[in-house]
């Protein structure tokens, strides 16, 4: 049996990234990090922002390069639809991209890059698809 203890939600360390206007509507920009992969920040048609690890759960395609529609992005490599809110692929495809905490403060975009958000739904799917869990203590 797979036994998991999940790390408590870490304390958020939000950092200023950019002005909202620097991300095109229905588009995305990338944030590079020294540790860990790039993060994609998406801006939807209704001016909400979302942040996901810039890797499609399918074959690692850079989601920041996809077409944004509604609250989803289509991966540029094989057109999987990934939900921006939960990072998960639309059924029947299975798999989730890591999510990061992001928020709008006025017209400023702030992001926590320290660790991905752990959610129950994301975790179960991760186990179900036989991918190594994102955090095991």
């Amino acid at each position: 049996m797979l036994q998991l203890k999940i790390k408590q939600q870490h304390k958020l360390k939000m950092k200023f990234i950019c002005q909202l206007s620097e991300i095109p509507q229905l588009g995305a920009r990338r944030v590079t990090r020294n540790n860990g992969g790039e993060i994609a920040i998406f801006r939807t048609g209704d001016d909400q922002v979302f942040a996901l690890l810039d890797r499609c759960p399918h074959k690692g395609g850079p989601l920041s390069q996809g077409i944004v529609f509604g609250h989803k992005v289509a991966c540029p490599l094989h057109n999987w639809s990934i939900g921006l809110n939960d990072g998960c692929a639309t059924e029947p495809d299975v798999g989730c991209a890591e999510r990061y905490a992001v928020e709008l403060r006025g017209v400023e975009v702030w992001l926590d890059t320290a660790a991905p958000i752990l959610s129950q739904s994301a975790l179960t799917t991760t186990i179900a698809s036989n991918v190594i869990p994102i955090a095991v203590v």
Partner: protein
Amino acid sequence: MQKVRLVMVGNGMAGVRALEELIKLTPDLYDITVFGAEPHPNYNRILLSPVLAGEQTINDIILNDFQWYEDNQIRLYTNKKITKIDRKNRTVEASDGTICEYDRLLLATGSNPFMLPVPGGNLDGVLSYRDIHDTEKMIEAAATHKQAVVIGGGLLGLEAANGLALRGMEVTVIQFAGWLMERQLDETASKMLQASLEAKGLKFALKANTEAILEDVVNPGHVGSVRLKDGTVIPAQLVVMAVGIRPNTELAESAGIHCNRGIVVNDTMQTYDPRIYAVGECVSHRGIAYGLVAPLFDQAKVAANHLAQMGIGRYEGSVTSTKLKVTGVDLFSAGNFMGGDDCEEIVLSDPGAGIYKKIVLKGDKLIGSVMYGDTADGSWYFKLLRDGTNIGAMRDRLMFGENNLGDTGHQGQNKAATMSMEAEVCGCNGVCKGAIVKAIKEKGLFTLDEVRKHTKASSSCGSCTGLVEQILMFTAGGDYSATPKLKAMCGCTDHNHQAVRDAIKTHHLITIPAVMEMLEWRTPNGCASCRPALNYYLISTWAKEAVDDPQSRYINERSHANIQKDGTYSVIPRMWAGETNASELRRIADVVDKYAIPTVKVTGGQRIDLLGIKKEDLVSVWKDLDMPSGHAYAKGLRTVKTCVGSEWCRFGTQDSTQMGKDLERMLWRMYAPHKVKLAVSGCPRNCAESGIKDVGVIGVDSGWEIYIAGNGGIKTEVAAFFVKLKTSDEVLEYAAAFLQLYREEGWYLERTVHYVQRVGMEYVKEKVLNDAINRKALYERLLFSLDGEPDPWHEQIKAQVDTRQFIPVAVLT
């Protein structure tokens, strides 16, 4: 809030499918109760024949087990026949007195076998062939008795006869008509079928009329033989009546609901009582009662849509086709296969090899087909029939099937049944036959779309579609039937590509939001499928007026380079007609060194591809190359391939390289519904392979021959001769006019070959060759669209390239 009460009468495939669709749409709206007359949960009735034949078991064909009803909180009453509907008080009553109230009622009562009114029809051992109970009785009889008679030589009768023969019985089929399956086959195909069934041991009495079923002398009350009108007596301890089915309308009629050979419904599957819906074999829609699964599932979907209070679906009827489920017999029929006045027939008959194919044409349309022995192309013919495709251009090759027109990706296989489970069916997505069969069985898939969604098979290039349909057929017992309609663009709208193009033109729409508002898009900003199409339609219809929307372009066109599997990009600079020089090559070499580009590759289009470039480097790579964009990433003009031509070649008759350069300089920066490739050869040896290009030009001594609508891709399509011209100026004008016609009328992602197949070569000739004024107008419109178009690599602002995309918005340490 109290849930709305939905009661369904009948627990068969169509009805339960409607519930499945309904639960998908709105899981909590209804409190659902189902009454089934049989003791079983929903099973696949189509697969009773394989069960009878011993190839599958009852358990194999259960579609929704009892647990499914429980999981979805559906109250299921089995063994309860509803005998009365009280429409005033909105209740139904079962034969045992159970009363159930409804707010909405769904009738899915199916059909009843038609029993011949002959003496002795009520004897023991006389059965119909309709449900699990009948099947079990037949299996039981086959174990204890020797001889059987099947009355009815149609689809069902033959499947029953075959199953009983496989269980060791001596079976005689009595057929009233002159040949078997007279509603699906012509006489020739039928005789071949008969011969192969006779080889399996079946006997036939044709043009035979059953007079009476006689009692067994030693076993009173039980059937003993069947007597025909001509006096022949055939001994039989089992008689199966399979002369037809009738929509079961008894309940509906008793409740005063209008019926006419079926419960009459409208396009939203409502009966004359708007609270009461009906789907399945019991229904008569526009005068037709369907008995095949695909149309019934279409009906189920529409009924569910309306029950879910979405109110957008409409069922507009289906075209159907037939396939016999007798192992080892391949047979297909669709449409008007008998022909008739003003029809023409193309027939291939090879009795020795057991192959017969007939296609029936009316004008330039295929209207029917019947095939025996080799049915691999059934789905293709059926598609041509259903879509009303203009087949004029391929008429001479039609008989030899789709494979004959060029096909790759599945090792030339065209018979799914003979493939092993490990064999790869879909070469694009690496899906083997076993995976498809497994998904169909485990997930209960019935349609091609469902298989595509779950397995990805046939979802990329589509060349294995025929194989997947065959697998679907023998695994789930599906059929080729489908609703004939122009497919909606995507899930965001019910409008098809043509309707959208027309609306943009008629209403002078110049922005994506304007189109979405006018055509009532269901999503706030479309999807990755419709937005690029809309963007193209706008800029191709209203050149210089509609403004390009980069966010509605696929990444390659947004970043003007080709994305690769690792997220890097490739860059292909333009080399006019494939000609280069030392200075360009030197610059390319310097760029490769400076940016440590890992792979340099010569392309099929006579250019040089630099692969593995980081997105951050793209802008400076373009600048350092100092060559025009090759648009190798665009749905638009790619390249003009040429041979060296008369300037060097000892065989050359024309200066093909110069012609190629002129064409490429005229057409570059041209966006189109899909990629466009040209070639120019200087003589008929055709070294530039002009025969598989969208526009292929071949120089001959007296001028140029133009070929159009070729394709070297998934399906190799040879370009068709278009026109012979004298001067290079004419070549430019005619090529441009054809491409502009395609740009203005083609659907997004439709290559020239498919465009020409859709509208017909005659139409294109009419517009471009026969109408000089129109040709010149098309030519002018293309030049106008391209005039002053910027090179996105070197005029980024003018080309609206968002250069912010190339650098990260932030770098965090």
